């Protein structure tokens, strides 16, 4: 990964008073589950860099431990070997600088959309009352949910839930957004609308984004860097720099360049998928 470019970017952003994006790194990370004598190694010696202010997409065959990777990055779990760092600082648990958007919705069903969004700042006692509500409403209007602030999550459509979740994460001003297959389960139309919406949001605020998916088209459309994982025990197979211009639109996916990336990624992933398919058979 073009380390010189990302390094200059991260030093530039460090000069700002409030950090907008952070550099995330995984060094020699391994993780296994189960008892020692029959443990299943899920991640094996993973070293990968997530440059500040860039959108890094992780793709891999299904069941390869992508969610485990997310749990380590978020701090829900600790690696057996190796370390995860954010701007050089060791990750020891979940924190507000790294916000996770979960696979299926994790909006709290007994709180209204507004209550969900204000939950984080309220819990930490940072902001309160009117000004917090106003800020949350502003964010919700921005994600197109202005009319739904008093609805409960289950009264929203799948796409709206995801946008509400984005708002809930963004109000905490994280420097890293971790997205664990966030658009899974949406229908094709809402999915592509969400991708476009998400890209706009990213291109506007340039936070460090780590986006996990199993869809290659989605990956290429969104990514600055594409990390391709191997089959279990999972290692980083290749990192592809996706050099498509921003702001992006869907037409770029049909360009010769995108097609080249797609073929490259498909070949790599197909090989891995075949392996896991053979094992499971």
């Amino acid at each position, binding site marked *: 990964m073009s380390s010189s470019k990302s390094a200059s970017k991260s030093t530039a952003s460090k000069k700002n008073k409030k950090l907008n994006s952070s550099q995330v790194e995984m060094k020699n990370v391994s993780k296994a589950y189960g008892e020692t004598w029959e443990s299943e190694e899920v991640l094996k010696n993973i070293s990968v860099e997530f440059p500040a202010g860039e959108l890094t997409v992780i793709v891999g065959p299904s069941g390869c431990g992508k969610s485990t990777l997310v749990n380590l990055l*978020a701090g*829900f779990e600790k690696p057996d070997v190796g370390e995860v760092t954010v701007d050089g600082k060791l990750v020891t648990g*979940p*924190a*507000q600088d*790294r*916000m*996770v958007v*979960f696979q*299926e919705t*994790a*909006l*709290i*069903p*007994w*709180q209204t959309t507004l209550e969900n969004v204000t*939950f*984080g700042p309220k*819990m*930490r006692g940072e902001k309160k009352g009117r000004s917090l509500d106003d800020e949350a409403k502003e964010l919700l209007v921005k994600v*197109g949910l202005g*009319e739904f602030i008093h609805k*409960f999550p*289950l*009264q929203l*459509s799948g796409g709206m839930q995801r946008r509400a979740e984005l708002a*809930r994460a963004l109000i*905490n001003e994280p420097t890293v957004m971790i997205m664990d297959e966030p658009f899974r389960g949406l229908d094709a139309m809402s999915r592509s609308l969400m991708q476009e919406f998400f890209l706009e949001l990213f291109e506007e605020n340039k936070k460090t984004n780590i986006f996990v998916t199993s869809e290659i088209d989605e990956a290429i459309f969104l990514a600055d860097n594409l990390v391709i994982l191997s089959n279990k025990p999972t290692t980083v197979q290749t990192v592809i720099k996706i050099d498509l211009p921003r702001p992006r639109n869907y037409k770029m996916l049909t360009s010769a360049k995108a097609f080249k990336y797609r073929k490259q990624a498909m070949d790599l992933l197909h090989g891995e998928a075949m392996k896991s398919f053979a094992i499971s058979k």
Partner: protein
Amino acid sequence: MTQSSTTQLDGNAKPEGFELFMLRMNKKFKSVDPYLTVAGIGLWLFAYWVLCEGLEIWRFNKLPGPVAISKDWFSTTPFQGISIFTQEYYDHIAVSCQRILFAFGLATGLGVPLGLFMGWSRSIRDYIFPIIETLRPIPILAWVPLSILLLPGFEGPVIFLATLASFFVTTLNAMLGVDSIDEEYFRAAGCLGSSRWDIFRHVVVPGALPFIFTGLQISIGVAWFSLVAAEMVSGDLGLGYLIVDAYMNNVTVPMVIAMITLGFIGYFSSACVRALGNKLMAWHVKELAQQGR
């Protein structure tokens, strides 16, 4: 998209108060449900009448039929001593209701927190769960001698038995309620910077509420059940006592009146618990409505 259609719906003024009530009643009586209920009750009463009074089938002829019961029940001078015009009837009801309120309140006050803590903390569960699971299958009637030995007077044992039965149901349901909460809500709350206590207040308690209220509806039924059993064994007043007392004195009408009264009050108390639950869980009600229930 859905956005425009929703705004349109919101554009219609929402009826309130009496208007809303009339709208709902109107809708209800246009459906077939209420007529089925009326027909069901009518059929049941008719069968009862045929068995006891119409044909006087063998052994059923010892029971008071619907006509005999209603004659006494609504009479100012009841032949067998109990009617809606006698003070004694209301004394029995009042005593039973007081005991239930006390027992159910005690069981809820102890059971809900205990169940929540058991679901929330592994170590609390390890301490308490095995004991509860051992005591729970012991039938409530098996506790009668012990409760009489342990507690003085009439009130003590009766309330103890009713409390005990409903306590187990409530505790277990509250614990299962916590178990039912999706792990991701805990993670999301942790990620957003909640302390352990915040998670208990904002995730554990509201998340377990649907299970808790299912449990409370069962537990108030169980409380009535064991209260009456207790009153029949050790009591000086109350609907259970009235049943057994009437039986002993060979007057069958007050016995059946007390039974039917118990049914109505039990129904009413469950409905109250359900209504309270729905009020506290607007999100859950809307979720069910979304699924067409």
